């Protein structure tokens, strides 16, 4: 008579032996050159910039993603909101590039004194010129915020009249 209990599948003894051999080999490799380990890894100066740049990239990708997700929406205010996503994405790209240029920029290119602020930027390349104009990123982020605000206002007004799914 067959038992109703589930049968335990026994592993093949040869493959078990092979796995044990691999484990021991790996352990030997690790123990070959041993150094003292620090529990907390120190973080140097460039990490802050990298984290910030990665965050900019995340912001940029998020804006592109949300633009794609909402591109078929036809409700009140959506056009302006989508436009704000585009502006924010472009602003992110510009800021990402400017942060990169800034890190590599020769400090001697900043000349003159205005308190401790430099008065001039001596540009010797296109990147320098881009850096100068890229610093005026409010020309991108103010239209982005303006479009977002206007879009939200339109949407609020429409939502006050009707709670249709169109604005949803």
């Amino acid at each position: 008579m067959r038992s109703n209990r589930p049968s335990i599948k026994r592993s093949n003894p040869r493959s078990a032996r092979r796995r044990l051999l691999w484990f021991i080999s790996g352990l030997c490799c690790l123990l070959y050159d041993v150094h003292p380990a620090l529990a907390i890894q120190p973080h140097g100066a460039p990490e802050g910039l990298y984290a910030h740049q990665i965050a900019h990239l995340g912001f940029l990708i998020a804006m592109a993603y949300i633009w794609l997700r909402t591109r078929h929406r036809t409700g009140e205010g959506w056009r302006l909101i989508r436009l704000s996503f585009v502006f924010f994405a472009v602003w992110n790209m510009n800021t990402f590039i400017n942060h990169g240029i800034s890190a590599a920029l020769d400090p001697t290119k900043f000349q003159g004194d205005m308190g401790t602020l430099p008065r001039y930027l001596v540009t010797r390349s296109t990147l320098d010129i881009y850096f100068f104009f890229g610093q005026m990123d409010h020309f991108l982020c103010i239209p982005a915020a303006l479009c977002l605000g206007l879009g939200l206002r339109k949407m609020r007004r429409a939502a006050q009249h009707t709670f249709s799914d169109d604005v949803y």
Partner: protein
Amino acid sequence: MSIELPLFYVYLVDSTGSLLMLALAVWIFREAYCLRRHSFMHLYLFLLSCSLGTFAISRAIGHILSYFLRYTGRSELWEAIRPISGGVNTLLFVIIASLSFYYGIFRNLQESRDREKERHVKEVQKARDFLQMVIDSLNTQLVVIDRAYRIVMANKKFLTDMNLSKEEALTYSCYQLLHNACDTVDDCQKDESESHLCPWKKIDQGEAPVPMTHVHKNPATQEERYTEISASPVYGDEGAVEYMIETLTDVTDKVKLEKLQQEKLTGIIELASAVAHELNTPMFTVLGNAQLLRRQMKTDAPGKMELNTIIRNVKKMSQLTKEMVNITEYTTKDYVDIEKLFDIAAASGPKDEKPDHWQIERAQRETRWLNLEKLAAMGQLTASVAHELNNAINIVLGFSQLLLRDANENSQTHNDLLKIEKNAKQCQHIVSGLLDYTRSMAREKQLQDVNQHLKDVLKLVAHRMALGKIEVVTEFCPDLKPVWMDPDEIKQVYVNLLNNAADAIQQDGQIRIKTAFDPLHQHILISFSDSGPGIPNEVMDKLFTPFFTTKENGMGTGLGLNVSRDIIRKHGGSLEAKNQPEGGAVFVIRLPVDPGEPQPV
């Protein structure tokens, strides 16, 4: 080549932009705050705006502070603040990105859920539509009523009959719509004594309600209709009855027909009782005279055999009359008056066992049918007895007339025979009333061979024809298709036409009966032509007018041809009269050959 670009513009744009961003951040936050509760999308926009606003504030403050501190020569302070400002901005970027991605994931889930929901709604709608289609296809009215007596659903038949739209019907309560004299449910329930038992009551008692008949008033026509109601409970999730499905069938015609039939049958029974009573005197006069005559006659005298036949038939008449009396007594004695029975039970029985309206309704329904069935059977029996009685009377009358012809006019025998004839005619007159009444009962058509039927009728009138020395010539078309007809009614037509022809001929003549088939119209043609004087042209138009007769006073009622034409018309045919070129009148009956199922006349 190097160009010196003034950083002042950068500082100016940056400072002004930062201030503007501060203002915009507050505005965006305000706009988004108003939207936050409308939907998930709005919540996302609110959180995004909050993050962007915080970032804008943080950045603006950072930039302004940077310029201010550096301009005032406190760069080291700015250097201490800078990583904090940068860190906050980084964190806000991460939050904005996370929010956007979470929103996308949530929307995906929601869209998939919406699709599922939409599919589910479609399936439910499809099932609903199918159910509605089935309900609307019903040929009886169907209505669903809730516990508050409100109509929550109605089928097409109900709405059409009530002349209401679906929306209108749902605004009514059942008592307002169907018993529109009732403004409240209490008014409606007061009516219970008048057969307005509410089906909800029975359902509340936990029993399936018996079918019941209500008198409903149609709101569209204000016409009162008898409606048979069958109600079924609809149970909710918790097992309690939440709705009631009522199917309503208009039985007004049935009830009226039932009542009419009952009245007719009761009428027959009552008439039969009166006829039996009235027949006694003339019948025993005939018997007495016949027996007296027989005693006076010698054994081998001519006419003795006829007298014996008369006596035998009068005795038979007496027996049939007794039978009729028995039938009427039996019918009236065992007629169950259920309401009386319940009245007695209610008055005498214990309070708990008193019958309620439901028991009365059920018992009434059952006994009504029983009584009706019994009445129908007794009516049928009475009709057949009356028919047999009539046959016996005809024989008595026929033989008495035969004997009268040979009797000496001035003899006592002649006088006695005249008495017999007179009384036999009186009997015939009495019974004919009952026969006419029984003939008005509902009949059924039968598939009948016209030629054979005519032959049977001719046997009935053979004696009359023999008396007038009228020769009856038949030219029957062979292989005629059988016709759906009421043989008794058509027989009445044939007899009427033959009697009219015999009356027109009076003595010594010929009646020619022909049958033929008209393949073009699929009609059977039956013509009765006589050798009489024909129909005068001035009366031709009035021939079928009721009570019009050319016969002497007391000889005809003027209804024969009118009734005959009506009977033929009822059979879908026609009756025409015209004069023959060679003299005499001809009546032509056209009957359609009906291959369909028999239908009640």
